[in-house]
């Protein structure tokens, strides 16, 4: 029974991740692609030689983009669903739906916003190919660190709750999280590889678009997965009343 619940939640998480990926893909295509094109224009104007094109721009910006964003959505949907199985009933007095949204928001903060503030997304033409190994290691390290520190903060908050009450335990845990992340920022090496003359407005808009893609993905996931989990775990009269009203199909 319990194992079946885990499986059902995992499948729903991957489906919700796929659906949220579709929303994120729309944001990536309409908001992000114009700035990628501008950045590639800058790159070509400053390139010394021409490289052979393995995949055409037309494919990269459509099918390629879709593959990457959707696989990312499914993968994080699955991981978030597994984390959700663990969080369920262990995060205080929260309904399945509220637990999903809280988990989703925490995941956005821990595995995207925390790395992003130190190592923000870069458009093509920004970044020295010789340092790709170092930058990739630092980025994945930052994702891992964000996740581990978030888990540590939640454990700390739960430990402090009996003594301090929920409000102050949460305040202390969040402050400790911010302090730990700030310390990591201070000690990890900075990366600044924006080439001279790269338009600042394009860089700024590209980074905002990248943030919008992730916000859409995680908000969409939290709401969709929360709805699916609520219906799976709580098929009570409240949910029945909610389903009586027309609700957008989760696809």
């Amino acid at each position, binding site marked *: 029974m*319990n*194992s079946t*619940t*885990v499986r059902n939640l*995992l499948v729903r998480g991957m489906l919700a991740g796929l659906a949220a990926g579709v929303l994120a893909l729309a944001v*990536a295509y309409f908001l*992000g*692609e114009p700035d*990628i094109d501008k950045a590639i224009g800058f790159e070509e104007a400053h390139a010394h030689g021409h490289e052979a094109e*393995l*995949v055409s721009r037309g494919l*990269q*910006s459509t*099918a*390629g*983009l*879709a*593959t*990457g*964003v959707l*696989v*990312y959505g*499914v*993968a*994080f949907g*699955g*991981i978030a669903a*597994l984390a959700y*199985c*663990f969080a*369920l*009933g262990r995060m205080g*007095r*929260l*309904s*399945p739906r509220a637990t999903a949204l809280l988990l989703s928001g925490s995941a956005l903060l821990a595995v*995207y916003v925390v*790395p992003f503030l130190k*190592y*923000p*997304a*870069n*458009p*093509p033409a920004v*970044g020295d*190919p010789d340092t*790709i*190994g170092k*930058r*990739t*290691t630092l*980025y*994945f390290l930052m994702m891992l660190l964000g996740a581990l520190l978030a888990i540590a903060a939640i454990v700390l908050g739960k430990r402090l709750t009996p003594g301090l009450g929920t409000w102050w335990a949460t305040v202390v845990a969040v402050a400790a999280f911010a302090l730990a992340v700030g310390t990591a920022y201070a000690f990890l090496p900075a990366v600044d590889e924006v080439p001279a003359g790269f338009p600042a407005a394009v860089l700024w808009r*590209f980074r905002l*678009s*990248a943030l919008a893609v*992730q916000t859409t993905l995680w908000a969409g996931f939290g709401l969709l997965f929360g709805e699916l989990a609520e219906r799976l*775990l*709580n098929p*009570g009269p409240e949910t029945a009343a909610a389903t009586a009203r027309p609700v957008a199909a989760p696809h």
Partner: protein
Amino acid sequence: MAQHVAQPTASTPALPAKLPIGAIAPWASFFGILMLVLLYFVGAEQGATSVASGDDVHEWVHDARHLLGFPCH
């Protein structure tokens, strides 16, 4: 860990039942690793490290890698 789940009443919503770690672990170990491998292929394959030779994976997910925030090249 040893808290008892409160009985649902008419006024307070039911606290969702905890799933035992033993039921989650097999799914988490297999699917968790599978999902991480997928993330690796979207985020880092043929950039910093390569499992498959060539540049096809990198070039195919190029735009997604940039917009999802991974270092690309």
